[in-house]
C-alpha cells in the first residue's frame, strides 16, 4: 500500500490517490476469508473514467460532480470553495456549529490516537487515505491558510502549505463521503476534537455553497421529502394505500385484526416511522401497529407530507435542510395536538430530532420526543401483553446504531427487552457505546451511485460483518437460523447489502431485522412464527 503525504491531495488531478485491493483489507473469518470466492470490486468502465471525476480511490459516490472543461471553470469552483470556507467560520452563517468547529480545528495535538478507533481505517488495512486525521488535517491547513490573517505566509514558513486546486476540492468532496460520522474517533480523542464533525462541516461547505451533495441525500433526499413527503418518493396517498394493503395481508397471516391508525387528532402518541420501512421491511411498521393496539395505546401515524417519514438526511450534510425537515415534523405533531412524538426504529431520526434539532424547535414546536427503545421497553414490561420467550429460541445479537447509542446514550432499554425475550441473546465485541458502525452511517447506507455500494460492503461495513460472524462463531453453519437485531432502518439497509454481497443468509443462515419484530414474534397471541428466514 502506498504511503500518502498530506500534500498528495493536490497532485495529479486525474489519478486516484490509492487503489483498493481486497487482499490488503483486514481478513474476514471463514468461509469469507478467500478473496477469490467473493464478488470483487466493480471497477469503473473506460467511459465512466472519461466522464466522471474519479481521482480518490477508484470509487465514485456521486456521478453528478461537474467535470470542468477549462481552467477558468475550475477557478470558479475554487473561488466558491473559498467563499464557503469563510462562511463556515462566521457567526451568522454557521452559528449552528461554530464553536465545536473552531475547537476541533484549533486544538488537535496530532497524536493520532483517533486513528485506531476508526472502523474504516482499520478495515482498509490501515490505508493512510482513511485516517480520520487525513481529511481533517488537510482541511485544517486550508482553513489556517485561507481563513486566517497572515495564513498564507504562516503556511509557507511552517511547512504546512497545502495547494488549493481542482484536485484538492474534488478529492476532499469525495473523501468527506468515506466517513460514517460515527464519532468513534471523537470518543477516543484526548482533546475532545471531533473528526466526524469536521467531516460534516466539509460536506456542509460543499452542499450549502457549491450545491454538491450526493443525489440520494439531497435531490432525491431532503428535497423530495419536503416536496412529495419522502425520499422514497412515497406520497401520502400511496403511503396510506400501502399500509392498508399490509394491514390486510398481516391480518390474514397472523389471524389477528391489524389496523393502522392514521391522523387521529389528539392522540397521545405520534409515531413516525421511516417510509423505507414500509416499503422494504414492512414487518416493522406492522409490528408497531400490532403492539400499540395490543397494549391499548392511543396512537397515530400522520399522512401529511413528511409526516410518515421520520428520516432527516440534513443531519448528514446540510444544516438548512436539517432545520427544515425537523421543523416540518414538529409542525405536524403540533397540528395533531399529540402529547409526544415517538421515533421509529431509525438512528439518525433519533439524533436529528431528539437532540440536534432541540435547539431549533422553539416555543410550542418543542413537543416532547422519545426514543422507540424506551417506548418499547415500557410496552413490553407493562404487563399488558403476554409473551413466550421460547418462541425466540434462536441466536440473536444486537447491533448498536451509533446515533442512538454512542450519540444519545440509549444503551440498556433495548438490552433489557432482548435479555427477557431472547434466550440466546449474545453481545458483539465491542458493543454498547464502544460499538462499531454498520458502515452505512453518515448517509452512506442510502448512497449507491456508480460503484459506491462495493466500497460500503467491502470497506466501511467490514468490521461490522466480522463482528457479526464472531458473535455467531459457536453456531457458524447455515443450518442454524440467526438474527441480527438492528433497530435502525439505515443499519438494516447496510446489513442487507452486506449480507447479500457475501451471501450470508445462504452460507451462514444470518438475517437482519428490527427490534419490534422480535417482540411480536414472542407474543403468545401470534400463532405462526412472525419472523421468517425463508419465503413460502
Amino acid at each position, binding site marked *: 500500500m502506498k504511503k500518502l503525504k498530506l500534500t498528495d491531495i493536490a497532485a495529479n488531478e486525474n489519478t486516484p490517490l490509492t487503489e483498493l485491493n481486497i487482499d490488503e483489507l483486514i481478513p474476514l473469518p471463514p468461509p469469507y476469508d478467500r478473496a477469490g470466492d467473493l464478488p470483487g470490486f466493480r471497477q469503473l468502465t473506460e*467511459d*465512466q473514467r472519461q*466522464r*466522471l471525476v474519479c481521482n480518490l480511490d477508484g470509487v*465514485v459516490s456521486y*456521478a453528478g460532480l461537474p467535470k470542468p472543461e477549462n481552467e477558468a471553470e475550475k477557478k470558479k469552483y475554487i473561488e466558491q470553495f473559498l467563499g464557503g470556507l469563510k462562511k463556515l467560520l462566521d457567526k451568522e452563517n454557521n452559528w449552528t456549529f461554530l464553536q465545536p468547529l473552531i475547537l476541533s480545528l484549533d486544538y488537535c495535538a496530532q497524536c493520532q490516537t483517533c486513528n485506531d478507533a476508526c472502523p474504516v481505517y482499520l478495515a482498509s488495512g490501515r490505508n493512510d487515505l482513511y485516517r480520520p486525521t487525513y481529511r481533517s488535517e488537510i482541511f485544517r491547513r486550508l482553513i489556517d491558510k485561507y481563513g486566517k490573517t497572515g495564513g498564507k505566509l504562516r503556511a509557507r514558513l511552517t511547512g504546512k502549505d497545502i495547494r488549493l486546486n481542482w484536485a484538492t476540492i474534488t478529492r476532499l468532496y469525495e473523501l468527506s463521503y468515506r466517513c460514517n460520522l460515527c464519532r468513534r474517533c471523537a470518543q477516543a480523542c484526548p482533546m475532545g476534537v471531533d473528526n466526524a464533525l469536521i467531516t460534516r462541516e466539509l460536506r456542509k461547505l460543499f452542499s450549502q455553497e457549491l450545491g454538491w451533495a450526493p*443525489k*440520494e441525500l439531497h435531490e*432525491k*433526499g431532503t428535497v*423530495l421529502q419536503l416536496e*412529495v413527503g*419522502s*425520499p*422514497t*418518493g*412515497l*406520497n401520502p396517498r*400511496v403511503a396510506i394505500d*400501502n399500509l392498508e*394493503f*399490509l394491514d390486510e*395481508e398481516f391480518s390474514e397471516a397472523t389471524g389477528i385484526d391489524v389496523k393502522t391508525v392514521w391522523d387521529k387528532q389528539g392522540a397521545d402518541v405520534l409515531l413516525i416511522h*421511516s*417510509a*423505507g*420501512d*414500509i*416499503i*422494504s421491511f*414492512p414487518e416493522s411498521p406492522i409490528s408497531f401497529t400490532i403492539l400499540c393496539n395490543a397494549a391499548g395505546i392511543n396512537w397515530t401515524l400522520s399522512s401529511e407530507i413528511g409526516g410518515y417519514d421520520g*428520516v432527516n438526511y440534513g443531519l448528514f450534510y446540510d444544516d438548512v435542510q436539517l432545520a427544515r425537515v425537523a421543523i416540518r415534523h414538529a409542525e405536524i405533531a403540533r397540528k395533531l395536538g399529540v402529547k409526544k412524538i415517538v421515533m421509529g426504529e431509525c438512528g439518525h431520526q433519533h439524533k436529528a430530532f431528539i437532540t440536534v434539532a432541540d435547539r431549533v424547535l422553539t416555543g410550542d414546536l418543542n413537543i416532547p420526543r422519545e426514543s422507540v427503545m424506551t417506548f418499547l421497553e415500557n410496552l413490553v414490561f407493562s404487563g399488558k401483553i403476554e409473551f413466550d420467550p421460547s418462541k425466540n429460541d434462536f441466536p440473536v445479537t444486537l447491533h448498536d446504531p451509533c446515533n442512538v447509542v454512542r450519540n444519545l446514550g440509549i444503551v440498556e432499554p433495548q438490552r433489557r427487552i432482548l435479555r427477557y425475550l431472547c434466550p440466546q441473546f449474545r453481545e458483539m465485541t465491542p458493543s454498547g457505546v464502544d460499538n462499531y458502525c454498520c458502515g452505512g452511517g453518515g448517509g452512506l*447506507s*442510502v448512497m*449507491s*451511485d*456508480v460503484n459506491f455500494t462495493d466500497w460500503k460492503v467491502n470497506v466501511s461495513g467490514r468490521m461490522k460483518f466480522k463482528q457479526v460472524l464472531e458473535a455467531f462463531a459457536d453456531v457458524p453453519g447455515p443450518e442454524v437460523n440467526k438474527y441480527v437485531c438492528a433497530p435502525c*432502518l*439505515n443499519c438494516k*439497509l447496510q446489513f442487507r447489502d452486506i449480507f447479500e454481497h457475501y451471501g450470508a443468509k445462504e452460507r451462514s443462515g444470518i438475517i437482519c431485522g428490527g427490534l419490534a419484530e422480535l417482540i411480536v414474534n414472542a407474543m403468545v397471541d401470534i400463532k405462526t412464527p412472525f419472523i421468517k428466514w425463508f*419465503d*413460502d
Partner: protein
Amino acid sequence: MAQMELAGNTYEVDENGFMQETSRWTEDVAKAYAKLEKVNELTEEHWKALNYLRTYYLANGICPMIRRLIKETGYNLSKLYQLFPKGPAQSACKWAGVPKPTGCV
C-alpha cells in the same frame, strides 16, 4: 449523463444503467436489458411482472412494494429471482424502464 444503447436506440441512463426517460421505454428495451443479463427470452411470466411494475410506477410515482408484486403476480421471491437474476429491484425495475428505487429502500 451516461448513455446506453438498447435495441438500436440510445437512451439516457444512470450509472447503474437504469433508464432516465421512462416514457421512451418499449418492449424491445426490456428484451435488450434482459439479454445483457443473459435472459434471452422474455416469457408470459416476465411480462406479467414487468407490466405490473410499469403500470404501478406510472400511476404512483414509485415502484410497488415487493409484497404487492408477489401478491399481484403470484410468484414468490425465489421465483422472482429465477425470472430476474438480480432480483425485483435491480433487474425487474430496470427492465421495466423505471428509475432505480432510492431513499432508504
